[in-house]
C-alpha cells in the first residue's frame, strides 16, 4: 500500500529532475483508498519528525481527502516537545491512509507512476535514466 509515510519521502528519480522540484509526487486518478488501523508508535513518530516535510504532507493528505493537519507545523527540530495530540493526528495521516489504486505524478517531468493493488511502479524508461 502507498502510505503518506512513504509518499512524503518519495521524489522522482528521473534524470530530468532535481530536488526540490521533483517533490512531492502529486496523487492523481485515485480510485481506491483504504483506512486501516495501525499501532500507534510514539517513539517511532518522534524519531521520524526530522525528515518530514510538513507543507508537502498537508498538500498530499488533502489530495486524498484528509484535512486534519493544521497549517502551522510544530517545531520539528524539537521532536520531544511536539504535543501528543499532533502526534496522534500525524499517526493517522501517515500510517492509516492507504492508496490502493491510482497514480502519482512528478510535478517537474510529469512522469506518471501507476499504483496497482497498492504497489507503485517506479521503473524508469531508458531515456529517463541517470547515468
Amino acid at each position, binding site marked *: 500500500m502507498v502510505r503518506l509515510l512513504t509518499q512524503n*519521502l*518519495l521524489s522522482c528519480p528521473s534524470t530530468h529532475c532535481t*530536488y526540490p522540484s521533483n517533490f512531492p509526487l502529486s496523487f492523481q486518478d485515485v480510485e481506491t483508498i483504504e483506512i486501516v488501523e495501525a499501532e500507534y508508535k510514539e517513539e517511532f513518530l518522534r524519531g*521520524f519528525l526530522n525528515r518530514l516535510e510538513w507543507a508537502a504532507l498537508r498538500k498530499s493528505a488533502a489530495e486524498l481527502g484528509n484535512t486534519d493537519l493544521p497549517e502551522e507545523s510544530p517545531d520539528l527540530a524539537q521532536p520531544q516537545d511536539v504535543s501528543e495530540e499532533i502526534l496522534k493526528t500525524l499517526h493517522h495521516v501517515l500510517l492509516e491512509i492507504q492508496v490502493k489504486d491510482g497514480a502519482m505524478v512528478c510535478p517537474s517531468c510529469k512522469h506518471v507512476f501507476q499504483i496497482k493493488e497498492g504497489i507503485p511502479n517506479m521503473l524508469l524508461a531508458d531515456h529517463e535514466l541517470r547515468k
Partner: protein
Amino acid sequence: MSRPEHLAPPQVFYNADEAKKYTNNSRIQNIQVEMTYRCLELLGLPPSEDDEDEPKPSFILDIGAGSGLSGEILTEEGHEWVGLDISGGMLEQALEREVEGDLLLSDIGQGIPYRAGSFDGAISVSVLQWLCNADASSHSPPQRLLRFFTDLFGVLTRGSKAVFQFYPESDEQVKFIMNFATKAGFGGGLVVDYPNSSKKKKFYLVLFAGSPPNAPKASQALPSALGVEGDKVAYEKTRERRKDRRGKVRKNIKDVDWILKKKELYRARGKEGVPRDSKYTARSRKPRF
C-alpha cells in the same frame, strides 16, 4: 546447479510460479529468517529509549524485499519499512502475506527514488549478486552498481548502516562490488560468518554511510564474524574420531604390525615394487598426505 542470476533476470526467474514455490519452501523460509536476524544484528540499531532490550523503532529500507519474508521480521521487531523489488511475481506473494511495509516495484540499478536522509538503515537478503549481471543489452553493471550505491548513500541518515547478505561468485566479484561502494562514499567491509564451513559460510557486506554527528569512534568498527575461533558448526563435530557404541574411542586399525604383514603378503603374491622395510615404515605423516 547453476546460479540463478546466470539463468535469467530476476523478474523473469522469479515469475509467479517460482515466486510461490520459493516463498512456501520451509527450508528457504528458515534460511531467510536466520539471515534477516543476522542482518539486523549487524545493523546495530541504537536501543529504544523506552526499553533497552529492544531496538529503537526505525525506518528501514529492505532492498530486494521479494515476498516479504524479511519484511515480516522487520515489522515484528517494531520497525516501519519500505521494500523494493523488481519481480512482480515476488511482490504478489508479499501482498498475499499482507505485509505491513510499503512495497515498490523498482529496479535498484536505476537508483532509489527517495529524498536524502530518509532511512535509518537498510538491509538486503540474497540480492546483491543479481546486480552484477547485465540483464539487457543496455545494462552496464558497473554503471548500475555505482548509481545504486550513490543513491543509497544519499537516502541513509549520516552514520547509519546498510547490511547486505549475498552470494558472491568469487573474491573478484566481492572486490568489484566493494569498489563501487567505496566510490559512493561508504566505509565498512565484509563480515564472513563460519569461514571454514563451505555449507554454512555466509557473506555480509556491512557499509557505513558516513559517521554520526556525535558518536564515539568505536561505533564505526566492523562487527565480528561468527564461527571464527572455537565456535564449531554443529555437523562439523562428526568429523572427529568416531566413537563406537559403548562410547570408547576406536583404535586406528592401520598400525605398524598390520602394515608389515600387508607388505609381506604383497611380496608373497609376487607384486612388484613393494618398498623395502625401513625405520620410516608406518611412521605417522602430517595430515596433508
